């Protein structure tokens, strides 16, 4: 383990005023976007993209990751206080968190949520740090042949997680790959799907694709729902002492907290499963492992702790495939990946050898941002009830503007502003008719990796690259993931993972 690099990165992070200031900006932003129903972390990244344009890689990555890593903590606030989940991953917290609020224990529920989120975030970062030396030789053993198959595995895996919408999921995964082929062909240099437009020679930027498929359809959806202006609930003041009681609960249930943090981190590793699965699986685990399961659903504090630890620890796990294989585990990670590319950071196996200090900076950012978030939220406790007076609708035109700005800056071509309109309308129709969009994003991200790796693998080994030992393992995983889908869908009939 590279202790010197790890400690050096922590020292740099904590002693560089600029980085500390960025975290102090990013964490409240993350809390805010998480707490606003209908917005969430992806919209937060969208709004930050124009601001990080031109930044150095480390500050840019620190502000993005610090914001992204605390979004779920913010999302638990409206879930607990008003019974309205800030984002999809916070729905499991509503069950017991809101019941606690109705019983007059809102402050304690908030404390349990903050403490669990902080602990989960730190343990997720520790998990990532500990996995680094274990995975390093595996990552470095990957050749273009394995990267091609890994890209296919990523798409297959996520498409099979589309549940009963497997055909839609696979179709959109393939559509994402087709969109990735727009631009100049890497082997012949000939233009593909460019319609004679120079701005398309560089392809459709991942930021444009993700904004069109996620941020803008969400805004169209939010703008079409007039009731977002309604007050979220009753504004109440909460005592800091109640919050401390809740934080104490996390440590009183320390075995559960550690178990669910680890489960969350492992689930985060699996592309496509996402936060919803992590929080629900851990909630289920808390119920199953409790000696008094009948208390759940009626305001049990463990029902807040379990999903919250998982929600934050999964970010550590999800960074692993994103950073080392350029396979984003979720749409949020895909957006983060796109932003990293914009900053000049190239995720992939070489990051371990060439940018290890950067990797460790990200790991520490995860841990420090989660701790900072807890401190800030404890300070803000008396005023959290006034969230009821905020209106997410006011942000819609700003998000539209910043999404268009992000799209323009990502590629530097004004024509992209027109292109994104058509893609976003398509994205909204797909969202409206329940086409699972994560496979599309993964397809766009992995398309260039798949094509480039295939050409290299064919040039080095010819078609026999499929017979390499590691290739056979990956082919086995691809076949296994499809077989698992068939088995699960026969068994349960309606196995489905939400739009991660």
């Amino acid at each position: 383990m590279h202790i010197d690099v790890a400690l050096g990165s922590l020292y740099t992070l904590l002693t560089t005023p600029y980085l500390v200031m960025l975290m102090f900006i990013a964490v409240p932003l993350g809390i805010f976007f998480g707490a606003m129903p209908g917005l969430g972390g992806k919209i937060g990244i969208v709004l930050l993209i124009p601001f990080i344009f031109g930044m150095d890689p480390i500050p840019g990555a620190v502000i993005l990751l610090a914001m992204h890593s605390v979004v779920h903590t913010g999302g638990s606030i409206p879930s607990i206080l008003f019974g309205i989940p800030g984002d999809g991953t916070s729905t499991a917290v509503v069950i017991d968190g809101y019941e606690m609020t109705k019983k007059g224990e809102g402050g304690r529920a908030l404390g349990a949520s903050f403490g669990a989120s902080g602990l989960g975030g730190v343990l997720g970062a520790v998990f990532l740090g500990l996995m680094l030396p274990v995975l390093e030789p595996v990552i470095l053993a990957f050749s273009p042949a394995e990267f091609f198959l890994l890209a296919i595995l990523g798409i297959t895996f996520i498409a099979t997680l589309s549940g009963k919408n497997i055909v839609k999921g696979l179709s959109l995964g393939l559509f994402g790959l087709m969109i990735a082929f727009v631009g100049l062909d890497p082997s012949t240099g000939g233009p593909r799907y460019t319609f004679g437009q120079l701005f398309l020679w560089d392809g459709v930027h991942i930021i444009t694709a993700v904004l069109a498929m996620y941020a803008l359809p969400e805004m169209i959806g939010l703008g079409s729902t007039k009731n977002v202006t309604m007050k979220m609930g009753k504004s109440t003041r909460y005592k800091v002492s109640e919050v401390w009681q809740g934080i104490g609960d996390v440590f009183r249930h320390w075995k559960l907290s550690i178990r669910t943090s680890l489960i969350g981190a492992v689930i985060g590793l699996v592309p496509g499963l996402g936060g919803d699965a992590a929080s629900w699986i851990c909630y289920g685990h808390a119920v199953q492992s409790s000696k008094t399961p009948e208390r759940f659903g009626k305001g049990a504090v463990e029902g807040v702790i379990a999903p919250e630890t998982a929600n934050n620890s999964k970010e550590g796990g999800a960074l692993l495939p994103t950073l080392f294989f350029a396979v984003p585990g979720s749409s949020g990670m895909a957006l983060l990946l796109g932003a990293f590319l914009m900053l000049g950071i190239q995720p992939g196996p070489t990051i371990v050898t060439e940018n290890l200090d950067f990797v460790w900076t990200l790991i520490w950012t995860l841990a420090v941002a989660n701790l900072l978030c807890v401190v800030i939220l404890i300070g803000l406790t008396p005023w959290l009830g006034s969230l009821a007076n905020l209106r997410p609708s006011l942000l819609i035109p700003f998000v539209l503007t910043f999404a268009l700005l992000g799209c323009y800056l990502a590629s530097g071509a004004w024509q992209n502003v027109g292109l994104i309109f058509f893609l976003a309308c398509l994205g909204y129709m797909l969202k409206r008719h329940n086409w699972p969009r994560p496979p599309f994003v993964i397809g766009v991200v992995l398309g260039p990796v798949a094509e480039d790796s295939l050409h290299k693998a064919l040039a080095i080994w010819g078609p026999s690259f499929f017979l390499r030992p590691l290739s056979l393992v990956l082919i086995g995983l691809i076949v296994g993931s499809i077989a698992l889908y068939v088995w699960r869908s026969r068994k349960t009939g309606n196995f489905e993972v939400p739009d991660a």
Partner: protein
Amino acid sequence: MPEGRIVISGLMLGIFVAMVGMAFTFAPGARMLPLVIGIPGVILTAMQFYTELHSKESKRASSEHVKREMTMIGWFLIFVVGILCFGFIYGAPVLIASYLYFSWKEKWYTALISMALAYVVLDFVFQEFIGIILFEGLILLYLFY
């Protein structure tokens, strides 16, 4: 009028067919992957289209909701066209204020404050502080540059 789910699956099928058709015009080396990926895409979307055509499921949205969706998409189009014509610095603040005032019936001072905030962020923060030159808009470019 066919249901939205049929329209979207038909649209996806159309997109795949067009992309596969276009792939045949590429050089042999360049068309390999678009065909390898596109042909299964045509098959899958055709299956989905067939399923939707023969599905008895009916989930028509209320006309009120469709009207709101169309209004929102209309506003999105206005934002795109407005920014393309007048750029980010001048177009976006006016569009933000107009959207809040006309679509959400916000108070005029809320709209004005939002407009001022947007202008400050776009001009002072991006152009002056960060030093990014934002798109000026096609009409303003034509008139003044």
